[in-house]
């Protein structure tokens, strides 16, 4: 079943066309990637999906809803969650609190229950806390629940961001360069984590990634963007040997050499 479908999505900033006529589909339960050189419009595309930008043209359909014109918080409520390229955590809140914020949309508590500390309120808070502990276990955060999010090392902060996104019980998880700045060992852990997110939680994943090991290792399909346009789409094997992709990454001259040797990566 198609979970996400965009048709002709275009986003301009003044005269610059950051994303142009982007058609994209993702099936439920898959892991897809978007790759492309810096400035290709990948993150802008994510931002139009999540409502941070409103596309000038085109349609976005997700799980039977049209997304264009909806606010980011409404789109989040429809079960799309994301992480950010340059980690955006709530730095002076604890790890637990960060993850609880991700759960906000799922909590039913109202102001009266909150002020009176009703039984339903307490039960929900307890449950939310327990779920938070499970999520911390799931992403591999140990003994840091009460630490301030900003005090954790880089890899830990990435994990919190993923746990926070998972807390909103998404159907689709958008990861914007989730392994940037990680060492090979951490990257391997991350790949394992993404697989478990899909296999154990049944969440569809769309990645933006530069690390070809990650992209080629876990994506079922890859979309390549350059100068705001989709220039190729296909399985990792197809992309690896696609002339336009190699050209976009390495330039025309190098492309010929690479092809002769058997593709990127």
């Amino acid at each position, binding site marked *: 079943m198609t979970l996400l479908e965009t048709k002709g999505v275009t986003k301009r900033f003044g005269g610059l066309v950051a994303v142009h006529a982007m058609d994209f589909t993702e099936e439920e339960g898959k892991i897809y990637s978007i790759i492309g050189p810096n400035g290709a419009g990948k993150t802008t595309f994510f931002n139009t999906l999540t409502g941070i930008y409103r596309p000038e043209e085109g349609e976005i359909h997700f799980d039977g809803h049209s997304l264009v014109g909806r*606010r980011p918080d409404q789109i989040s409520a429809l079960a799309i969650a994301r992480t950010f390229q340059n980690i955006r955590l709530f730095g*002076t809140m*604890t790890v637990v609190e960060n993850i609880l*914020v991700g759960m*906000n949309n799922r909590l039913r508590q109202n102001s009266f229950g909150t002020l009176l500390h009703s039984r339903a309120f307490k039960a929900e808070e307890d449950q939310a806390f327990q779920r938070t502990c499970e999520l911390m276990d799931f992403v591999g955060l140990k*003994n840091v629940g*009460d630490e301030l999010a900003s005090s954790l090392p880089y890899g830990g902060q990435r994990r919190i961001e993923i746990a926070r996104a998972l807390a909103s019980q998404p159907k689709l998880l958008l990861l914007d360069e989730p392994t940037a700045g990680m060492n090979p060992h951490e990257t391997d852990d991350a790949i394992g984590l993404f697989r478990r997110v899909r296999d154990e939680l049944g969440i569809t994943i769309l990645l933006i990634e530069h690390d070809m090991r990650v992209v080629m290792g876990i994506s079922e399909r890859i979309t390549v963007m350059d100068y705001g346009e989709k220039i190729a789409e296909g399985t990792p094997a197809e992309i690896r040997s696609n002339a336009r992709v190699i050209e976009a990454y390495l330039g025309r001259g190098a492309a010929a050499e690479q092809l002769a040797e058997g593709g990127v990566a």
Partner: protein
Amino acid sequence: MALNSLKQYISKAVGPLQTLTGGRKAIIATRFMVVYLALTSIWVYFDTQNLLAFLLFLASALLIYYLPMRSKAKLVISLVAALIIVPVLGIRNIFYLEVMFQICLFSSLALGLNIVVGFTGLLNLGYVAFYAVGAYTWAFFGSQQMYLLHSIPGSQPLTNAFLLPADAFYLFAFLGLGVAAIVGILLGLPVLRVRGDYLAIVTLGFGEVIRELANNLDHPLNLTNGPQGITPIQRPTLPTGLLDGLRVILNPIVGHSVTLDEFYNLFFYLITLLVILTVVVVVIRLNSSKIGRAWTAIREDEVAAVAMGIPLVKMKLAAFAVAASFAGIMGVIFAANRTFVSPESFNFLQSINVLTMVILGGMGSIPGVIVGAAAVTVLNVQVLQGLSLGLNDLRQSGGVIPIINFAWKDLSSQLDPAKYQRLLFGLILIIMMIYRPAGIIPEKRRKRMPPGSEKPKELDNNNNSAVEAHQEAHHDAS
């Protein structure tokens, strides 16, 4: 460096104490607290004009908060102090009740502003406008202003009865709360489109607009009586039977027959105390719910917050409304307490005053903000006035400073410390920003690990007890 050696010294001094078990420590702390409270109370009781004695007495509030006593002991001691000792000492020297009233009043304002500035990170420089809205709500309906709508301000002496019975005050306390909240939302709707510095400027403008409205709405309809302000405003009635009964008990204790005005001071102290306790509970509960987490998330990163599904406009409006409502109810109480309101009570400096309390105490920190409010109030109405009075005494004593041959009576009145209030505040703020930017008592996040019975985390014993202590502190705060 110096601080570290001080810390070492203290830990050496209290070293033996740390070997005590929790229960034993609590007993010693409780005994110490009772003795401290008793001694300072007795001192204030017999030396009613002594500022130092009163300040030491006030400090017991901090001791109660910090000493490792059991929650029950803390509760009992606080109740005895607030409901028995303060009223008795306050009637001995009625000024102390006024100070306590102002501390409670400003704490409530500061806690409200703290929701907007501290929790949600929206700088509001016109907060006092909501206070004015509450005050004028009761000032208009609790006075004879309704009969003066078509007359020139101050033109005719009033003989008619009041518009509403005095006890409508209680109803208007809630009305003032609601009206201020609505004004908060109305202000918020257009204002929240702007961010950061721009928001500060717009709210500053709003504060001035409300004050100017109060100044100028004496024409064409005389709603506010202009710069002269509205007076008299009614105070709620106190039942004579109850007062007579209280006099039987209180007169011998305080040493004179308690007057009606003194009872009113006591009444307003108790009612603000009730409000501030409610406000504290409301703020703590909101802060540890999804609403409070959403507020802090907005403060930390608006983009991430909205991407996590937090409706920005709704949550910001909620912060504005809750903050405004605290100011509104205190405005009603203020109008009744003073029996007079005028636009001058709600000028820009008042907004800055409340903001100073929040910053000084610690943005986002509930105990911090209350301490900030108390410190600024005491400094304002007691310490500086005390110094001024002291200088005045010197001037009148005809004394001379020996060597330089300077007669105290020649000291210019321009050197009056009370006149340097703002200068002093400025200095304090600068020093705080350099050495302790997070405030006297910085914000602390709630600690929740380990999750009780669920999953024992591999924490060593030291960590465990620290976590428990934190949790206890949190319980006590709520």
